[in-house]
Every structure is written in C-alpha cells, then in structure tokens.
C-alpha cells in the first residue's frame, strides 16, 4: 500500500487555483452535464467502501450475538417467516437491476455518445419506487408477525428477526436518501460519476446484505 518513491501527485490540478483537483469540479454555468470533468471522485468511492466495511462489522457483531444467544439457552422457538419476505427479496433484486440500467443510461448520456439519449432519470425513479416498496413490504411483514403474536420480546428468534430487519431497513432508507440526492443532482446537472457509483455500490451491498440475512433467517430461525 505504501508508495515510497517520489510519486506523481494523485490528483492533477485543473485550472490551477487550488491543489486537490476534485474540488474544482464546479458545474459549468451552462449546466451542461457533459462538460463536467470528473477527475477524482475518489473520496466518495473510498468513503463508501470504508462505510460498507463498518456496516459489515456491525452485522457480524449482530450475527455473533445471535449465535451466542442461540447456544446459551434452549428457549429458541422456530419462527415461520412471513412469505412476503420472498416478494420483498425479488423487489429489492429488481431495484438493483433498474439501478444498473439507469447507470448505463447516465453513462451514455454523460459520455455524450448519443446526444438523443433520453433524460436518464426515469430508471432512477423506478429504483426509488422499488426501494420504497421494499421497505413497505418489510413493514407488512412486521405487521403480519405481530398479528400472529410475535412481538419483539416474545422469543429470542423474534427479537433477532426484528433487529435484523429493522436495522437493514434503516440502512435501506439511508440508501433511498442517497438516491434522492442523486436524482436531485442529476436534475440540477451537478451529478458526478463518483457520487452515482458510490450510491449504487451501497445499494447493491444492501441487496447482498439482505440475501445474507435471508439466508440466516431461513437456516437459523
């Protein structure tokens, strides 16, 4: 990781007024997206990976708490998963696909390859919608469990069920916030590639995390 020799600067200067290049990326007055050069974008990318590492660690902590708790006492009761979870899974997966599609569109749009390209926000809206639908679906799952008498404190299995799904849903809400920011930036013409990339990494990670949780729920609950 360490580079020891006289290394060329990691970011080139643009314009010459200030050094760390990425800060000079202001939207041009014309609001023409294509003329925004995105040279750095690195902090957003690094940031999202570092953030994901922290989230992974948190869920690792929750998982090991669950494993310990299961091993401590024989009071773990089997919890029948609400079927809507599978539908939610499909929705979340679909949202990742639509996000990728919109990323393609934006890339062509920004790259200026097809000037006639349609305004690329549409797929983002669909993603946003699917994300909201997922959270609503999770909410429906909680309602369903409650109606069957499974509350947070009913049994360790339901406690962990709620904890896992709540915390994941909170993170998905965070991702939705990111999408909203991306959309608004796109509309204002100030979207940078790195922001879009970071948001979509995060979003796909939420997918993967959910698949992992679903796996836990199916095998351990």
């Amino acid at each position, binding site marked *: *990781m*360490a*580079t*020891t*020799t*006289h*290394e*060329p*600067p*990691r970011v080139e*200067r643009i314009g010459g*007024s*200030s*050094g*760390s290049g990425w*800060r*000079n*990326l*202001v939207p041009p007055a014309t609001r023409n997206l294509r003329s925004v050069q995105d040279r*750095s974008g*690195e*902090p*957003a990318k*690094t*940031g999202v990976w*570092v*953030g994901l*590492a*922290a*989230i992974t*660690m*948190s869920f690792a*902590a*929750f998982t090991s*708490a669950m494993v*310990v*708790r299961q091993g*401590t*006492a*024989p*009071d773990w009761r089997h919890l029948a998963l609400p079927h809507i979870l599978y539908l939610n899974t499909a929705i979340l997966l679909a949202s990742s696909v639509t996000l990728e599609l919109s990323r393609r569109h934006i890339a062509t749009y920004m790259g200026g390859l097809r000037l006639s390209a349609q305004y690329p926000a549409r797929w983002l809206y669909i993603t946003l919608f699917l994300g909201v639908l997922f959270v609503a679906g999770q909410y429906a799952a909680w309602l369903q469990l409650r109606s069957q008498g499974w509350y*947070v*404190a009913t049994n*360790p299995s339901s*406690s962990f069920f709620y*904890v896992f799904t709540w*915390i994941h849903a909170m993170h998905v809400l965070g991702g939705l916030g990111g999408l909203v*920011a991306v959309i608004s*930036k796109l509309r204002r013409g*100030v979207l940078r590639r790195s*922001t879009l990339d*970071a948001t979509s990494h995060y979003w796909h990670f939420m997918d993967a995390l959910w698949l992992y949780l679903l796996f836990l729920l199916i095998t351990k609950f």
Partner: protein
Amino acid sequence: MHDTAVHATHHGPPTSFIRKHIFSVDHKVIGKQYYALGLFSVLVGMVLSWIMRLHLVWPNFAIPGLGLLSPAGAPGGVVTPEYYLQLMTMHGTLMVFFVLTNVPFAGFGNYFLPIQIGADDMAFPRFNMMSFWVTFVGACFLFAAFFVGDGPPLAGWTAYAPLSTLGKITGPGEDVGQTLWAISIGIFCIGQLLGSLNFIATTLDLRTKGMTFMRMPLCTWAWFITSCIGLLAFAVLLPACILMILDRVAGTSFFIPGGLVVNDQLQPHSGGSPLLWQHLFWFFGHPEVYIAILPAAGIVSHILVNSYRRPLLSHKVVIYSMMAIGFLSYMVWGHHMFVSGMNPVSALAFSFPTLVITIPATILTLIWVGSLYGSKLRINSASLFALGFVSMFVAGGVSGFFLAQPSIDIYLHATYFVVGHFHMVMGVAAIFGMFAGTYFWFPKMTGRMMNETLGKAHFWFTFVGAYCIFMPFHYLGLAGNVRRYSTFVDDFMGPLMPVHKFISIAALCTGAVQLIFLYNLLHSRFWGKPASANPWEGTSLEWSTSSPPPWDNFGGKHPVVYHDPYQYGIESSTGDYVMQDSPEQIQTVRDDKKLTP
C-alpha cells in the same frame, strides 16, 4: 455528499456567525469544537473525581452546593454510597469517551490531519460537521442523566449486564439514567464512525502532490491507524448498545438470563447471556484504550522529533509498531474477563497476545528514548509533557504486564492495582499527550503563544502530582483493596485509609494546579504574544501556512511536498531543518543510516 466544499471553495469563506462558528463545515472549527467539548468534559470529570476522593476519605463531609444539585444522591451535600457509584460511572464514561476520544483523536485529528497532508478540508466536510453534532447530542444525553429522576447510572463505565439491563429494581440510576447512558453511547458511536470514515477517506485520497504515505508525519499516521481501529470497534459497540436498549425498554432478553430474583421478585426474562455483553463490550473496549493512547503517542512522537532536532532512529519502525499494536488490539479483549467465568483455556489464548503487545510497545518506547541519546533536546512545555508521557506510559504499561498474566490477575483483578494501571496510561499518559499537543499547536490554532513559564510550572506540578495520585493506587491493589467501593469500613481495608488520604490530598492539589493551565489557555488566547508561522521551527506542512491558517488552509495555494517529514539536524538555508514543502535540494536524512558520521 461533498458539494458543500465545492461551493465553499468558490464562494469564499462563510460570513454569518452560525455558519462560521457553529454549524461550520471547516475542519478547523470542528476540531476546536471537539476540543472544547473534551475540555468541558474533562473539567466535569475532574470535579467528579474530587467529589469521589473527598467522599472516600471523609464520607460524612458535606460538600457545599452538592445537595442542591442532587437532592436524592447527596442529601445536604453528603454523598450517599450509591451516588458515589453514579459519579464514578459518569467520571469513567466522560473520561474515556468524551475526553480521550474527542480531544487527541477527533479534536487534534480534525484540525491537523488535513493540514499535514496538504488538503484544504476533509473529504466529506458535511459529514464532518454531522459527526461533531452527533457526538454533541450524545454528550447531551449523557449529561441529561445527571438531572433525571434517580440520577445517573451506577453500573460503571463497563455497564455489565444484567445490572445494567434489569431496570429500576436493581438500584437508583438504573431507571432512566442507564437508558440515557446506552442511548448516549450509541449516538457517540455513530458520530465516531462518521468521523473515522472521514479520516480514512481523507488520508487515502486527499494527500497533496508528493505526499506519499511514508512522508506523512507520525501523528497523521497515528490518526489514520486509530480511525481504522475505531471504525471496527465502534461498529461493534453500536449493536451492543442497541441490544442493551432493547433489553431495557422492549423487554427482550439478550443479556438477561432466566430465573433471576431481585427483591424477592422473579424477573420475567429468560435465556440471555451476561457474558455476551462482556464480550461485545470488551471487543470494543480494548481497542478503545488504544484509540485513546495511539493518537497521544503519535502527537508525542511528532513533538519529540521536533524538540530532539533530529529524525527518530526510525520512522518506519514507529509506524509499523503502531500498526502492530492496532492489529493485536483485536485479539486480546478477553484479558478483562479472566475471572468472569469464561472458559479457562481461552484465558490462556487471550493472555499470550496481550503479552506480545508489550513488544511493539517496548519498541516504541525504546525508539523514543534511544533517539534522545546524542540529540539536541530543546526543553519547552510541549517537550516536557511529551517526555512526561513516555515516563507515564512506561509506568502504566509495566503494570499492564502484571494484569496480562491470568494467574496474577486472579489476585489483582478488580483491585486498585487495575485502577492504578489505567490511570497511569489513560489518566495521565494520554492526558499528557493532550497537554503536549495543546502547548505545541496552540500558536498554530490561535495565532498566539502560550506562556512558557506557566507551562513549565504546570508540567512539574502535574507530573509530581500524578505520580503521587496514581502510584499509591498500585500499592493499595497489591494489598488487596477492592475497587468501586464507596467506603472502606471494614477491618481489612480500614488500615489502608492513610494511603487513601494521601491520594485524596494529592488529587485535590493536582486538580487545583490545572487552574494554571486554564488560566494560561484563556489568557494566552486573548492576550498572548502573537505567534509567527513557525515558532517551533517545525518541518511539517502545518508550519508552512500562517498562524492561524486561512479558511482554506493554504490561502488558495497547494503545497507540494519534496521531503520526508522530519528533516532536522542538517545544514540548510533556514537553519538546522528543511520544511517538507521547501524545494531546496538536500540529502535526505532517513532513519539512522545517513546520520552516522
């Protein structure tokens, strides 16, 4: 995410008072805010420790005014045994979380990390502002615990379950106070996670031209390593706090086993594991103590090099030792649980890495001491505190060596020996790091010099005082004096009272000496001698900008780095040192090789 900075760069510095001083995205302002929050917390924590010390030796002494502040805990100003524990819990929590994490790491780190790598701000300035305000809200929750129904929590800063989870029935403070504690620490974790993320991204991505990893100053390295530790450690404490809050308010049983009877009432919980809390807590807790000490160690290295007027014997070895400490810190948490009922085999498994950690720690110490040999030490307040740090670190680290051996820990666990150990390392060593940093960087942060005479007096009194307070703790521990007791009434510990009296008097005096520091701080802030850009003839980038730095750090320019960080002890146009951004051609003095005549 970071468009704020973009706008800031182009619209000039903020002008409104709120944008400039309160909700500022400028890392320098945020660094000072952390510092102020830490300073406030350390003063409160110190006053709490006075009350504790007074109560320990004069249990019936009525402290004027305390009765008004807490009618239940201290009726008429006389501290009750449970109020003692509540104060102790708050003292430990404030000191560990809101002082030692806020000042050396978040405070100085925020202020100087971007400057030292030649960036004009953090990678995510708005996140940065958020992380401070989140921490601030956490602090508010904690302070609020003083004023709720039956007072702050009494379960210690370690908040062992099930005492901390069963609620009101187990004692005063375990009602709302403990819930506030858990919420506060949870929020604190979020703040620190945001902060660590920011530090990492900044260090990785915003280094200026020529600033390679090995050219980063040692304190930048320490902050970087610390933020890597913090990222993983706080990410574990946060889930633990969430589970604790659920146990307390939602009736779950994560940490509460079945069949508990409190006050003849069978508790409605079942199946939880108290040891689970301990594991989660210490998985965070041990790395946390290195979060407290590494930034201080980095700051101290930075200051020592400057006052030795020569590079350390090895730059790399210091970095690698800090990395090794950081890495090992994740494998040793069980040493706090030797007698907790953990499997005895795992005690051995935890003991070994704990002992091994002393090796990189010794290497650090030897480098600090060895580089001193044959140097041209400049004595000033900052370097005195830095050298004091080394002395205290050795004193405290050596006692860690006792505790790391499970067989000895059977006898010493939960005695004042442990209290002596951690006050030596975190109570004074890390605090000395903060003092050293303050004396060293004050000119840069405010544009004014601190008073050296007062600074030196402050050092000598504090140094002697700290030894007088904390060394006797070890003797008490060896004699078997148990910690977290509010009075020592019995025939066994009674005879140790003279030692306690000595400690209390020393603590009051040492505390009073801190007034010198406060006076110096405030007086110099407004009326100190104006400072030049580089009063200590330092080499790193913070010294190549004005004091205090302009709002974008380098006044629209960006430094280009040509040299290793500590080019001292050479002939050059400016004296015996060359700044990192000076284009002057020199023969690099790296490590010990080039120095040998």
